[in-house]
């Protein structure tokens, strides 16, 4: 199908475009920007007057809960949530049940996702069998099956020798290792940032040291092995300072932050609101300020939704017993826009979009997140003025829990195109 998107403001951070330009799609590719390719005849015209035309979003962490946790969410519901949120490529962590540590499981997931014909799904393979931190997985086989990198999700490796070997092995084949920096012991039983709020509420704390101790180890192992490491869900000022220094030193590291942590702090726990029970925990004001600064100066490469659907039974519990996580796919765009609005400068909007498109794609090594002629036609058309209220009924995801419930956010997706196919329209 040939699609003509006209009258929109086209923002493509990768190519430095922010202008009133039409976009032309032929089949699954972008065929023209500003002017149509020779002989173009539209089968479908989308009027994007007043809209922004951007690359489809690339989300570095979305839990789809398949296989194993279908009571929390299914591939159908979460893939719908993705395109409703303008997300056309998503990376999913391996902490499913069973864990994504065998090529067969990855192939099945990829097959299931392809048959739904919505967003592209890029699984992370488990770095160790069963995420147990003991034996390496068949990384080469898993890569052939479709894994783009290897991760321990929320299970830090206790034995540092195993982590060293895993990084050596990954480096041998040029695979990336994605790690959330968390010490296997410090803060392990904690449920909230160790600080005044946790002390007052009597919640067990997760010290920022949990993040920094892990970073010291990881960076030393990167120096020793040369492995490429992506650091997931940075949360502390001290941790970001270490990442900044590591990048300056020239270590092959990148990092991301969950969208919640760009906006919220420990204060948002309020009176034990389990919707604000997240991993890593919401930190202090100073940490949030450091996150925003690190986004501006490029220390943080990307913002992800950290989409984690949790059902009522696991959320309507005392704070410390509730499962961590929040729904996020449908909030990612609005939360990035909220950050750009609050930054209030000329380049703010393209910069915010880069963090959820081109920069995220670069981190994941994907040929996505850009609107170049000849690249895949993954496009998000959104209304930058439309306001919407976050409510369970407004979300396609089966996960209805988010600390942003009741917030009024700006920015609503009108059309999502995946590989030239209109996957969502409102």
């Amino acid at each position, binding site marked *: 199908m040939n699609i003509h998107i006209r009258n929109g403001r086209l923002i493509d951070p990768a190519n430095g475009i922010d202008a009133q330009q039409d976009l032309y799609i032929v089949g699954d590719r972008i065929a023209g920007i500003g002017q149509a390719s020779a002989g173009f005849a539209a089968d479908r015209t989308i009027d994007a007057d007043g809209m922004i035309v951007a690359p489809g979003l690339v989300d570095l962490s979305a839990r789809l809960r398949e296989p194993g946790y279908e009571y929390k969410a299914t591939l159908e519901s979460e893939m719908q949530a993705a395109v409703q949120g303008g997300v056309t490529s998503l990376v999913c962590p391996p902490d499913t049940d069973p864990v994504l540590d065998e090529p067969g499981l990855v192939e099945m997931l990829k097959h299931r996702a392809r048959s739904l014909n919505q967003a592209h799904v890029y699984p992370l393979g488990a770095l160790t069998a069963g995420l147990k931190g003991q034996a390496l997985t068949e990384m080469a086989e898993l890569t052939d099956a479709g894994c783009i990198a290897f991760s321990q999700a929320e299970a830090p490796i206790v034995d540092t020798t195993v982590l060293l070997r895993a990084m050596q092995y990954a480096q041998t084949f040029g695979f990336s290792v994605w790690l959330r920096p968390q010490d296997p012991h410090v803060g392990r039983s904690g449920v909230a940032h160790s600080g*005044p709020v946790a002390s007052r509420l009597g919640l067990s704390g997760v010290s920022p040291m949990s993040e920094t101790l892990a970073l010291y180890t990881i960076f030393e192992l990167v120096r020793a092995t040369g492995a490429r490491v992506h650091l997931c869900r940075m949360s502390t000022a001290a941790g970001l300072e270490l990442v900044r220094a590591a990048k300056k030193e020239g270590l092959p590291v990148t990092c991301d932050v969950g969208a919640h942590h760009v906006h919220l702090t420990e204060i948002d726990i309020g009176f034990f609101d389990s919707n604000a029970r997240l991993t890593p925990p919401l930190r202090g004001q100073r940490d949030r300020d450091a996150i925003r600064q690190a986004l501006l100066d490029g220390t943080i490469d990307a913002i992800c939704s950290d989409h984690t659907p949790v059902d009522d039974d696991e959320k309507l519990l*005392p704070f410390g017993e509730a499962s961590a996580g929040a729904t996020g796919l449908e909030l990612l765009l609005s939360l990035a826009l909220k950050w750009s609005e609050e930054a209030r400068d000329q380049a703010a909007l393209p910069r915010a979009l880069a963090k959820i498109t081109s920069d995220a794609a670069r981190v994941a090594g994907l040929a996505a997140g850009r609107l170049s002629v000849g690249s895949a036609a993954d496009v998000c058309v959104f209304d930058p003025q439309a306001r919407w209220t976050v409510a369970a009924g407004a979300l396609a995801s089966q996960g209805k829990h988010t600390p942003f419930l009741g917030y009024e956010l700006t920015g609503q997706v009108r059309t999502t195109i995946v590989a030239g196919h209109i996957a969502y329209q409102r």
Partner: protein
Amino acid sequence: MHNPQLNKNGELQHLLTIEGLPKANILHILDTASSFVSIGDREVKKVPLMRGKSVFNLFFENSTRTRTTFEIASKRLSADVINLNIAASSSSKGESLLDTIDNLSAMHADMFVVRHAQSGAPYLIAKHLNDTQQSHVHVVNAGDGRHAHPTQGLLDMYTIRHYKKDFSNLTVAIVGDILHSRVARSDIHALTTLGVPEVRAVGPRTLLPSGLEQMGVRVYTDIHQGLKDVDVIIMLRLQNERMSGALLPSAQEFFKSYGLTPERLALAKPDAIVMHPGPMNRGVEIDSAVADGTHAVILSQVTFGIAVRMAVMSILAGN
């Protein structure tokens, strides 16, 4: 942010914590308690304030002492009391906390007295009742995790007022395991709200939570400095499971460093009072000579505790 323990008119609907409770509400509870103290001395120890009301004691964590005092307080108010030791029943059968609450509400409960090992559990129950149009049912927090034990905090204030009359010139030291203590947190909030100029927390670094100073407390790790010239000493119970491990090497060493002995008590003002929420570990946090000595008001705390719990329950039932 809406304070879930107050109703639309700003009256106390639930008692979940002392934090944020206005001074006037605290004093009203203490004054009401004074009028109940003498009931215990009467031949007929009952008033009809809660006749026909059903109070459910929901103890998700074992406690004989606190449950008993709530039971006595309810009975003296002529309420019907139902004790549920849930630690040993439904939750071990897999029923969720809120399902348990819905079932008991359907039996026309008027008040839940809740003890739970998780900080914030009574908030969850109060919010659920409010969200399901059952806001006429009241919740009293009888201790949740490390968070709060408001009736203990109030009875401690009653005791201090009884012996010291005025809060505005006192120095109070809270000694021991502050990190895990809901009593310490409730006492700190109550003391600062009532205008006590100096509240001290005394303990080893491993048992002091981070950011304690932001609750308006002066932190001491040396007990000699911490007890110097204080008017009130509140000793905390050290739980058995915390006596040896990564937090403390042994009960003996804790007693050596932080136990309240007659020599250390002598550092406080001559008329200082010694309090303890019970049950005491003699020879761990407190020397028997002090526990049984003239400065100790530990048994008065127990007596006043019943009057304070009667006051809380009757005030809630009236709102």
